[in-house]
């Protein structure tokens, strides 16, 4: 079933194209949103199944042999990421049906959504470094457009930083590709890796690796490149926030995972030190940023950063402990679901109360106990409380850190976990426990039918719970995918086959 590998790109591209063509009909757009993302979900399950069976699924686009044409390669990590993108995409689409206003729908919301997913999936699946750049751009421009959809002042101000810093990242990325191409003369990542393996002194490659590191670091919102994220993530439509929060930075993380396991030497002392510092400082600055916030989505935004730190910690410690990489991957899986859900919950709270400011919120536990429970499940999961998904994610990373004797990182990760708990309980206390501040706020009627929102949130919360209670299969998946990453020769062989 190798066809399944291109479908996660082509389905959203096609849905997006049709959605543009059917611009004038809201019904067509809404139907396409559900059908398109639903099909995407099916395709990504198919893909994961195929990859689980065969280890790698590879397709040479246009039947041009690798390394000349563009190949799509799905290893377990890629397939997992695609599945997560599909889940988030589907959830967001359903959620959007009842939260996105007609105004926004009429200005391209759904086409943008589809094309964003296409870009994200393209980035996950491509085996070609320049093609990765292209998909990054697709994703980026789609996110630009989604970010400003609505034209509020805050959106514009946030977008200026988002756009500028991400464009700088793209330029650095492109420059790095240019330098790498100059050195190796090829773009296929497997081919690059295979060729570099035969070079004696790859000193210059280590230098170029720094540029890739910075470019992806910006995309991943790692320290000290994260500025664009807190400036903008709380400004768009909440469904968009959720999608961004879940997916976008993780594409940067994915790219870091990919190139630093396949192409560049992660054991290089500078690279290792850099990743370690980056991981620690990302965790810490992110969580401290959140501690200073008193707006629902801003708190969540800063936490994205700190959680990215855990994932990078997984990568940074990979040479010392294979378990670390497993932890990083587990963390990604957990985080995408939980963070997206928390944003969706903030949106539902907004629907109920009309504000994201903690000081204007309150009384929701009394009024909506089930919402409270759904929030608690996600929030405690984010904070790494057992038996939810976040606990195992944190546990693996920390256990790996201990195995690797990375004491400072472990200590940081622990403190950050505690501070995450601090933020989550802050939200809980202010939004749910505290009495509603004024009557008029508390009685603001919910707009429209919220059942779809509850269903989406409940489904994602259930997923968090299941990843926690049934952590073994997810762990096994993460472990096998880490094994694949740690043995690049398998990837190279899958792509280049007998040409080696």
């Amino acid at each position, binding site marked *: 079933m190798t066809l399944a590998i291109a479908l996660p790109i082509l389905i959203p591209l096609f849905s997006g194209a049709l959605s543009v063509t059917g611009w004038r009909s809201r019904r067509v757009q809404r139907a396409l949103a559900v059908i398109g993302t639903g099909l995407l979900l099916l395709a990504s399950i198919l893909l994961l199944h195929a990859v689980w069976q065969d280890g790698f699924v590879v397709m040479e686009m246009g039947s041009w042999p690798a390394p000349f044409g563009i190949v799509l390669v799905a290893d377990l990590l890629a397939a997992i990421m695609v599945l997560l993108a599909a889940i988030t995409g589907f959830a967001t689409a359903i959620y959007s049906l009842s939260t996105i206003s007609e105004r926004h729908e009429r200005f391209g919301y759904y086409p943008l959504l589809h094309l964003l997913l296409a870009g994200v999936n393209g980035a996950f699946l491509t085996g070609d470094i*320049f093609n990765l*750049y*292209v998909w990054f*751009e697709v994703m*980026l*421009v789609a996110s*630009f*457009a989604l970010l*400003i959809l609505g*034209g*509020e*002042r*805050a959106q*514009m*101000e*946030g*977008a*200026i*930083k988002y*756009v*500028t810093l991400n*464009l*700088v990242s*793209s*330029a650095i990325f*492109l*420059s790095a*590709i*240019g*330098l790498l*191409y*100059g*050195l190796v003369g090829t*773009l296929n990542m497997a081919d690059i890796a295979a060729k570099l393996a035969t070079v004696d002194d790859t000193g210059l490659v280590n230098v170029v690796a720094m540029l890739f590191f910075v470019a992806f670091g910006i995309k991943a919102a790692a320290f000290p490149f994260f*500025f664009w994220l*807190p*400036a*903008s993530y*709380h*400004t768009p439509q909440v469904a968009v926030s959720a999608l961004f929060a879940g997916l976008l930075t993780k594409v940067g993380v994915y790219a870091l995972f990919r190139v630093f396991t396949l192409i560049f030497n992660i054991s290089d002392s500078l690279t290792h030190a850099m990743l370690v510092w980056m991981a620690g400082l990302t965790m810490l600055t992110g969580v401290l940023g959140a501690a*200073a916030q008193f707006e629902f989505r801003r708190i969540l935004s800063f936490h994205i950063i700190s959680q990215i730190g855990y994932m990078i910690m997984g990568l940074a410690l990979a040479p010392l402990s294979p378990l670390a990489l497993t932890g990083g991957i587990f963390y990604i899986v957990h985080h995408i679901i939980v963070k997206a859900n928390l944003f969706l919950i903030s949106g539902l709270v907004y629907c109920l109360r009309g504000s994201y400011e903690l000081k204007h919120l309150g009384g929701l536990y009394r009024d909506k106990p089930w919402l409270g429970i759904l929030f608690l499940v996600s929030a405690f999961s984010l904070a790494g409380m057992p038996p939810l998904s976040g606990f195992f994610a944190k546990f693996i990373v920390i256990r790996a850190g201990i195995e690797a004797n990375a004491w400072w990182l472990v200590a940081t990760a622990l403190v950050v976990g505690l501070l995450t708990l601090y933020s989550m309980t802050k939200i809980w206390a202010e939004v749910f426990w505290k009495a509603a501040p004024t009557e008029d706020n508390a009685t603001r009627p919910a707009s429209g039918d919220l059942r779809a929102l509850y269903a989406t949130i409940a489904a994602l919360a259930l997923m968090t719970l299941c990843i926690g209670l049934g952590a073994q299969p997810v762990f096994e998946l993460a472990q096998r995918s880490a094994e694949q990453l740690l043995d690049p020769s398998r990837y190279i062989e899958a792509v280049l086959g007998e040409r080696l």
Partner: protein
Amino acid sequence: METLMAFVIGVLYATATYMMLRRSIVKLVIGLVLLSNAANLLLFTTAGMMRGAPPLVPEGALQPEGPVADPLAQALILTAIVIGFGVLAFAVVLIRRAYDVVRADDINRMKGTDT
């Protein structure tokens, strides 16, 4: 020629950086244009530069007669130029709208969303 281009491209990166560090949003956009040109030229240079041999096959032939300039790099740059244009267009309109809502060209006044 690559050596010469290395310096020229360095100048482009430098000017792009300087422009992006200004407070005026218009200068920011100009910086982005410079940056994208710099990256394209970098790719062009590192792929190796060759005079007078465009990657075209003469009519009736199966291959060019002699060596030709790297067509792959050119295809990549073409893609990058077009992408850069799309992105730039977006950025340009964005600053325009940002100016509309903020009523100032000064980026330092657009910091309401950060803290």
